[in-house]
């Protein structure tokens, strides 16, 4: 039971000030831009909600949003089951455990632009390991700078490479916390492997898996650097995800009004979906 104590606010004040400085002021700037029009020279005119209407009805935004949802959906349905499967087959103790954990975590500690550059070098058609293997050993024609489908496969595989370990490590943390007595009881009852998974392992992993899905959703929905370095959003606009499109509009074309309106809509969507996950998660916490 927690103690009621209003002075606890003093403890959170430093955090509050620092995060507010970083979050509220920039957010107000964005809101400001989103309702105004400018022709340069710092002259601004009231624009109302026109930019929001323009963004929400533009085909370009719908396409980018569609690609974004497709990307996030695909990586979630690949990474989550794959991560669970790998965690289940990892050793529970012994000298291999730290080795597995360290090597698996390694991709997550590589700067995101290096991840993009690394995959670029890896997939070059004639001199990359993967590119050479696909083109010259298997005889497929694989070039992700030309073929939208190849570009999509590449960014999905890159994300699976980069982030599946997050799911593995979380699921593994859940698995090792299961007391041995549970497994012994299951053995006495003659439970099948599937039953052990369904009624012992999966419920124990529920909390950590919710965190995994929440983190993977947020990060994949906000992804920018890796696909930008790898494909630049191309060929054409085929891999232009939301953040890439937003940066193009804001910093490339300097259309501040539409970019700001798009930012707010973008953030609202992320916030809403994450709130759904968060609510589910705290429901879990309260039940335990």
């Amino acid at each position, binding site marked *: 039971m927690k103690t009621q104590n209003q002075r606890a606010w003093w403890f959170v004040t430093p*955090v509050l000030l620092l*995060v507010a400085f970083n*979050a509220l002021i920039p957010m107000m700037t964005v809101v400001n831009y989103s309702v105004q029009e400018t022709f340069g020279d710092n002259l601004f005119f009231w624009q109302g909600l026109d930019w929001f209407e323009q963004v929400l009805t533009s085909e370009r935004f719908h396409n980018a949003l569609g690609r974004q949802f497709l990307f996030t959906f695909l990586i979630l349905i690949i990474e989550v089951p794959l991560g669970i499967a790998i965690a289940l087959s990892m050793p529970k103790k012994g000298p291999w455990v730290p080795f597995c954990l360290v090597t698996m975590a390694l991709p997550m500690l590589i700067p*995101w632009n290096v991840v993009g*550059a690394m995959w670029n*070098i890896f997939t070059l058609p004639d001199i990359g390991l993967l590119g050479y293997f696909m083109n010259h050993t298997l005889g497929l024609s694989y070039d992700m700078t030309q073929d939208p489908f190849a570009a999509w496969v590449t960014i999905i595989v890159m994300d699976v490479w980069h982030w599946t370990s997050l799911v593995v490590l979380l699921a593994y943390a859940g698995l090792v916390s299961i007391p041995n007595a549970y497994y012994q009881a299951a053995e006495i009852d003659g439970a099948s492997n599937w039953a052990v998974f369904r009624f012992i392992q999966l419920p124990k992993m529920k*909390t*950590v898996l919710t965190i995994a899905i929440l983190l993977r959703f947020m990060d994949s929905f906000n992804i920018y650097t890796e696909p930008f370095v790898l494909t630049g959003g191309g060929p054409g606009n085929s891999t232009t995800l939301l953040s890439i499109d937003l940066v193009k509009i*804001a910093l490339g074309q300097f259309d501040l009004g539409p970019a700001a309106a798009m930012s707010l809509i973008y953030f609202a969507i992320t916030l809403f979906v994450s709130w759904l996950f*968060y609510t589910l998660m705290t429901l879990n916490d309260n039940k335990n």
Partner: protein
Amino acid sequence: MRLKSLVPALYILFLMLPIYWLVAMSFKTTNEILAGFSLFPQTWTFENYTEILTDPTWYWGYINSIIYVTMNTVISVMVALPAAYAFSRYSFVGDKQLFFWLLTNRMAPAAVFALPFFQLYSAVGLFDTHLAVALAHCLFNIPLAVWILEGFMSGVPKELDETAYVDGYSFPRFFVTIFLPAIKSGVGVAAFFCFMFSWVEMLLSKTLTAVEAKPIAAVMTRTASSAGYELGLLAAAGTLTIIPGAIVIYFVRNYIAKGFALGRV
């Protein structure tokens, strides 16, 4: 049983392939790279590494990155400690709302903040300083640190606090000499995560710097765009960015699984 250990082995192989290729490329000469495919470097060269380690624009990129990452880690963990203690021990008006609001900042797309951050930090005169990047990264690292530390602190029984008060400890003395040692693995994990996310982030660090505090990531983009065939150099620079991560991860290897679960196992 044999078949079972094949799954992680194959997965690790898959993870290592692109890394191997990057490292292999970094030891090849430009001529060899352009001449075509070779699985191992034919003529080993350290030229790419020599160039990076002797050219100030290159090696300052690494130093700059390490400076702001360290600053960010220290700031984030220092301010997150009392806040996480408050969230794990007390209930106060608006605590749940505040906790969720902190998390929303972890959800914000960095692309949304790029331009406003540039204007904000230019206005306060911090543009192109290490402090600017360190503070900007607090946006997502403080919520994460609070979240992780709160998870670890909630695992410490409240009786510890109460016994200390009965024994006549003042709060600061209790916090530093009893409570911190009890959650030291949590502090390590939180620091590790702050390090990690500040080290890998690139959009904000690139936007907030020009010359003085330019991170290694930005130096690499310059090479990538100006001379497309300097692949060996790019590969060597990339290889060097993996090393700090590999070192820190080795230190927290025993806590990493629990850390990723944000202390909630």
